């Protein structure tokens, strides 16, 4: 089964103009309606707190919040203000950006289980103010917020998580 196609090109083939090409910058822009659950979530981030939603039927408190319980398939029942603390469920020490540029100082992405939510329920976020080698699964962490005047209703209003002191 010797393949006949899949002709490899080198960077030189492109740069020398030997191989014709077309470049294009698409404009793919959106304003995604947040809806009631994520809308409130963002608003509360601006207020400097994490909130979840609770379903009385299955007794789960979930974050990120949803308007409905996806397992019971009914509207969720109430908002719950969660704690400012959590536990590292898992983490990485990452040396490249989203578009593969090298980082001098690594980022520490993590899933943080938020206290007050159901066990194992976390969010994707970043850990900082710590020696990367000190980070462990199961470590307790606390939320570090941007100053109130800098918050804009974004997940980045929560600056990062750092070890609980």
């Amino acid at each position, binding site marked *: 089964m010797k393949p006949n196609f899949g002709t490899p090109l080198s960077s030189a083939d492109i740069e020398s103009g030997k191989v014709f090409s*077309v470049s*294009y910058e*698409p*404009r*793919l*822009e*959106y*304003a*995604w*309606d*947040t*809806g*009631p*659950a*994520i809308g409130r979530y963002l608003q509360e981030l601006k207020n400097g707190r994490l909130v979840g939603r609770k379903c009385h039927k299955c007794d789960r408190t979930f974050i990120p919040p*949803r*308007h*409905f319980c*996806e*397992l019971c*398939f009914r509207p969720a029942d109430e908002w719950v203000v969660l704690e400012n603390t959590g536990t590292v469920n898992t983490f990485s020490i990452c040396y490249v950006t989203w578009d593969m540029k090298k980082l001098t100082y690594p980022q520490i992405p993590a899933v943080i289980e938020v206290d007050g939510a159901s066990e194992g329920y976390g969010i994707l976020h970043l850990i900082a103010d710590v020696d990367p080698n000190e980070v462990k699964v199961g470590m307790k962490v606390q939320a570090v917020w941007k100053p109130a005047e800098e918050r804009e209703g974004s997940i980045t209003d929560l600056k990062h998580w750092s070890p609980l002191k």
Partner: protein
Amino acid sequence: MSENVAIIGVGSTAVRAVTPEVSYRELTFEAAQRAYADADISHTEIQSAVCCEEDFFEGISIADEYTPDQLGVVLRSVETVTGDGLHGLAVAAMQIQTGIFDVVVVEAHSKASNILNFDHVIEYALDPIWNRPLGFHPEFVAGLEMNRFLKESGASVEDCDRVVAKNRTNALANPIAAYPARITAEDVAQSPDTFSPMRKMHQARRADGAVVLVLASEERARKASRPIWITGTGWANDTPTLESRPWGSDAATRAAAKMAFGEAGISDPDKEIDFFEVDDLYAYRELLTLASLGVKDGAGKINTSGGSIGMGHTLDTIGLYRVAMCVEALRNGSAGTALAHAWRGVPTTSAAVAILSNNHG
């Protein structure tokens, strides 16, 4: 069909120009709750889901990630088809016919209002080497097709104006339509030229909405209160290239109809089908579609819902809104056999047809 499949539940949201109060999740959740209530089933009974969407309509790469929750089908068999909802319907019916599932749902939604530069998204669908560098507004494709179709068929621009007046007026009686209006063909003739011979009002305006259908095997459908039988499905593509397509005719719809008619045992659609919900993203497309389906006498039977011109262009949800309108007509007795048709819009040549009936076999 080898095994009979029925639609046992339909749920849709109203079609609206904007829906700022909900995200795609809550929009779809509403349609799903309505569908499951209509079918009188629990979400736990659903074994599989087929979702229809495109990454760049959602603004998400691999948009299928975000499908299961709002349908209540977490950890079940879920697939996404980049087709119109009618393609999804055909796939769901096949899933049931394999015998592995009894209850399968089909979903599509539109949050067209969230796309800030829709024309750029469609531009990105043009061939990047041959067509896109020309830099034209992508709907030139519809202008070319309309001009050629009018030339070959002898239809006039005024015929297209009348399609618009009919569909907008029909939408007045449809409570979920987004663009009803009491207008005449003369009003349409006043609207500005866009892609001549096309005018602005010949083009369906975009809108938001979601539809969920519940499909079931014959055995399961027998327990449902108001099953509507899918007696035939067909879908086909012509060439994707602008260079090799016929331009004055719609080979994809012809092939899809041939397949669906063959399955449903239909030889004369004029006589055997009394309700048509067909593509009208551009007014000429309704005329082109009818010609491709072989319908000669459509008076009073075509897009009585208002079609996409009256209800709104809901991206890949169009076909499911067509089906929802057919099911309503079949259930209320205003139709015995209905046809739903969709085309995916420029620059595609992708069409699908479903034949629905109160009876089967």
